[in-house]
C-alpha cells in the first residue's frame, strides 16, 4: 500500500515548528483572496443522501430555502466534479467502504459536511450496523446537529465551510493533508475509534477533546485526530 509519492515539505507543529510554507507575500495573499472568493461561492456539493436528512437537503434545494443563494445549487452526482461532500443520513458498515471510495474519488480541494446526528455520531442508533460517526471513515469539516437539521442549519453549515475557505492559503501544505497512503483507510486509528464509539462517546469527546479551538470553523480535522491521540496517552 505504501506508495512512494513526492510530498510537500511538512512541518511538525507539536515540535514547535512554525507553519508558514512558502513566504507569504503581497502577491500570494491577493491570489489567495481571489481563489478563495471563487471557491467559496461556487461550491459543487456531492450529495451523499441516505436517509431522512436527504429530504431536508432536497428541501434546501427547493424554492423556499434555495441553496442557490450561496452558489451551491449545482448538485454534482459524480464525485469527480464535486468539492463539497454532504453526508446526509445514517451510514452503515456496509456503506462505509463506498463512502470512503467516493471521498477518495473527489479531487482536492474538498470539504465535508456531516449533516445530522446519525452521520456525526450515530445519533439515536447505537447498534451493530451503524457507523458511530463518519469521522471514523473520512475527515469532516463541519458537523451540523439535528435529527434531521432544518434546511437553515444546513445552510449555516455551508456558510461555515465558506468561512473556513476564506482562511485558507495556497501556500499552506496542511490544506491538502490526505496523501495516497490514506486511500481506502479509516480516518482515525483504532484507539481513537474505540474512544469516540463509546455510548455518547462521539458527542462528549468532540467537546472535551477538541475544545473551543477545535470546534471553530477554520481548524483542521487533523487537529482533532492528534488531540484524540494525545488524550489517549
Amino acid at each position, binding site marked *: 500500500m505504501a506508495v512512494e509519492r513526492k510530498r510537500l515539505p511538512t512541518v511538525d507543529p507539536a515540535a514547535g515548528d512554525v507553519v508558514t510554507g512558502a513566504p507569504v507575500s503581497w502577491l500570494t495573499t491577493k491570489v489567495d483572496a481571489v481563489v478563495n472568493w471563487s471557491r467559496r461561492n461556487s461550491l459543487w456539493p456531492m450529495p451523499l443522501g441516505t436517509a431522512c436528512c436527504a429530504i431536508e437537503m432536497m428541501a434546501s434545494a*427547493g424554492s423556499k430555502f434555495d441553496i442557490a443563494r450561496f452558489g451551491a445549487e449545482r448538485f454534482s452526482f459524480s464525485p469527480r466534479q464535486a468539492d463539497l461532500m454532504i453526508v446526509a443520513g445514517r451510514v452503515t458498515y456496509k456503506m462505509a467502504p463506498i463512502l470512503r471510495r467516493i471521498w477518495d474519488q473527489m479531487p482536492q480541494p474538498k470539504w465535508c459536511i456531516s449533516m445530522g446526528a446519525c452521520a456525526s455520531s450515530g445519533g439515536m442508533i447505537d447498534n451493530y450496523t451503524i457507523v458511530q460517526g463518519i469521522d471514523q471513515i473520512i475527515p469532516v469539516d463541519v458537523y451540523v446537529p439535528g435529527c434531521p437539521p432544518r434546511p437553515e442549519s444546513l445552510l449555516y453549515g455551508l456558510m461555515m465551510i465558506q468561512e473556513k475557505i476564506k482562511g485558507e492559503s495556497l501556500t499552506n501544505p496542511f490544506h491538502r493533508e490526505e496523501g495516497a497512503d490514506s486511500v481506502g483507510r479509516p480516518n482515525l486509528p483504532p484507539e481513537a475509534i474505540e474512544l469516540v464509539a463509546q455510548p455518547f462517546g462521539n458527542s462528549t469527546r468532540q467537546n472535551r477533546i477538541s475544545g473551543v479551538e477545535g470546534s471553530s470553523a477554520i481548524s483542521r480535522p487533523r487537529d482533532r485526530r492528534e488531540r484524540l491521540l494525545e488524550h489517549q496517552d
Partner: protein
Amino acid sequence: MSPTLIQQLPDLVIGAEPPTDAEQSPSVQALRSRFGESVRAVRMDPVATPVVTIEPARIHEVLSFLKTDSTQGYDLLLDVMGADPGGDLVIQVWYQLWSMEHGRMLRLVALLPRSELSIPSAVDLYRAADWLEREVYDMYGVHFEGHPDLRRILMPENYDEGFPLRKDFPLRGRFTRSEQVRRALNRSTEDVYAREELALAGMLEAETSAAAADAPVGSEAKDYLAGEKMVINMGPQHPATHGVLRLVLQLDGETVVRCIPHIGYLHTGFEKTCEYREWNQVIPYTDRMDYLSPMLYNIGYALAVESLLGVEITPRCRVVRVILSELNRILGHLLWLGTGAMDIGATTVFLYTFQERERIYNLHESYCGGRITTSVTRIGGMLADLPVGWLEACREHVNGLPATLDEAEELLTRNSIWQSRMIDVGVIDAETALNLGLTGPNLRGSGLAYDVRKARPYLGYDEYDFDVPVGAVGDTYDRYLVRLEEMRQSVRIIQQALDRVPDGPINVQDPAVVLPDKSEAMSSIDAMISHFKLVMEGLQVPAGDVWYSIESTKGELGFGLIADGGPKPVRCRFRGPSFVNLAALPHMVEGGLVSDVIACNASIDIVLGEIDR
C-alpha cells in the same frame, strides 16, 4: 391511593372483549380436517386473526392447499417473519396470508427448534416469499429448503458476526468498533460483489466455463453470434435510485437482460434496537423508517400496540389521526411526484411539489415542532391536542391543494414526452402483481382494488366516502394516474373529517396507559402515582402477539409485535411495503430498455429507510 389500588391499575387495560372462537373460522376447520395432527394449536389474536401453529415440515403442503383450494383462496402472502421469543428454545416463523376473494386473514406459525432450523421454502407458491425468506435467513439463520437464492440480503454477504435478531446477539455486535470499521473497509472485491455478478461479468473463470459447458446447444451461453453482454453497476450512490439502492444490470445493447437489486446499504437495525426500548420509546424510531410520510408509521404503530392493549382511543383522536394520515399520504405522494418527474427529466414539477410539501411541513411544525421526524402519537392518544387554529389552517391548505395538483398534472399527464416514457413501460399484470406480493398503488395500478382502508377499515375509514382508484394495464403511467387520484381522494377524506372533528379529550382517560396532565401530576396523589409508575416501570403491555396493518403511501404497512407483559417488546417487526414492492423491479425491467429502469424504479415509489430498516 392505597397500595391495593396501584396493583389494580393494570387490570384496567385488560378490558378487551373476549375474542371470538378461532375454531369457528372456516379456514381453521378445513386445516383441521385435512391436516389433522399437523395442526398443533389454534388461537385468535387481538385483531381476530386466526393463528394456526403448523408442524414445520408440512408448511409447504399447507400453504399450497390454502392458495389453490377454491374455498380458501389465500392469494396474497403479506409477510414472512421470524421471531425469537428468547430462552434458547425455538425460533418462530410467521406466515401472514390474505384471501382477496373471501376477505379473510390467516396466520400460520411454525416453531423451529434451534437444533434444526430448517423449513420448506414457499417461493414456488408465492414469489413474494423470495426476499422475505432471505430476510428471515439473514436475521435468524433459518434455512429455507428449496429457496433458489438463499443469501444474506440486508447484512453484507460476508458478515460473520452471526444472526443479528437472535436474542443472544449483542446489540452493538460481537466485534469492537475499530474491528468493525477495519473489516468494513478491508473487504475484497469478492465480498462486495455477489458471486453471481462476478460470474455474469466473467470474472469467475471456472464457473462461467462450467456453466457454458452444461448449457444445452443453442442456448444463450453457446450462441456465439449473440452480442457480448455487458454488466453495469448502478448505485448505491446514484441520483435516480432514491437512496442507497444498488442495481446490477446485465445489458445486451440497450436491452436489460438481468437486473439484480442489492439492498441493505441503509440497514439501520431498527427491529433489534426497538427490542431494547420501551413501547412508547419506539415511536421516534418509527418515523425514521418512512421519512416521506412519517405520521403514517407513528399512527400505525400506535394502533398496533393499542390493539394488543385492548384500548379504545377517543373519537376525537380517531378523527385527528385520519386527518394526519391523509395529510401524510399527500406528503408522500407529492415527493414521489416531484422526484419521479425529475428522474425522467421534468425538473419543474419538483419545485411545485416541494412548495406544497413545505406548506404541509408548516402544519407539522405548528402541531409537533418537527418537520419530518414528527413522533406525534403516544400509545392511547396523541402527544397533545391540536393547537388553536390548526384545523382552520389545515382546511385552508387542503382546499388549495387541488389547484397545485392540476398545475402539476397540466405539466405531465398529456405531455407527449411523459407519455412516451411511461405508457406500456414496466407492465405488471394483476396475477403477477398479486403473486409478487405488491400492495398499495402498485397493486391498484394493475387493476386490483385492494386497499386496507376498505378491506379491513381502521380508524373508522368505513364512515368516510372515498373511492379507490385502479389502473387498467399495470404500466408506469397507470401507477402515476392512481397516485394522482389518490391525492384527490385524500383531500376528500380530509374535508369530510374536518367537518366532524368531535370535541372531548384526545387521550384515553386511563392512568395505566397515558401520562396524566403535568399540572395534575403535581397536585393530585393519584395522578402522581400513575405518572411515577408509567415513567419508572414503563407501559405494561399484556403478553400476546399481533400482526396489524394499515394502508401507508407505499402499500400495506404491517406491524408484527410480540409482548411478554413487560415494558419492552419482545419482537417488533415492521413489514415495510417498499421492501416487497422493490422485489418486483426485475420483473418490470427485464426485457425493457435501460433508460426505462429509471422510470420503473420511480414508479414503484420506494423509500430505502423502510426497505432496509
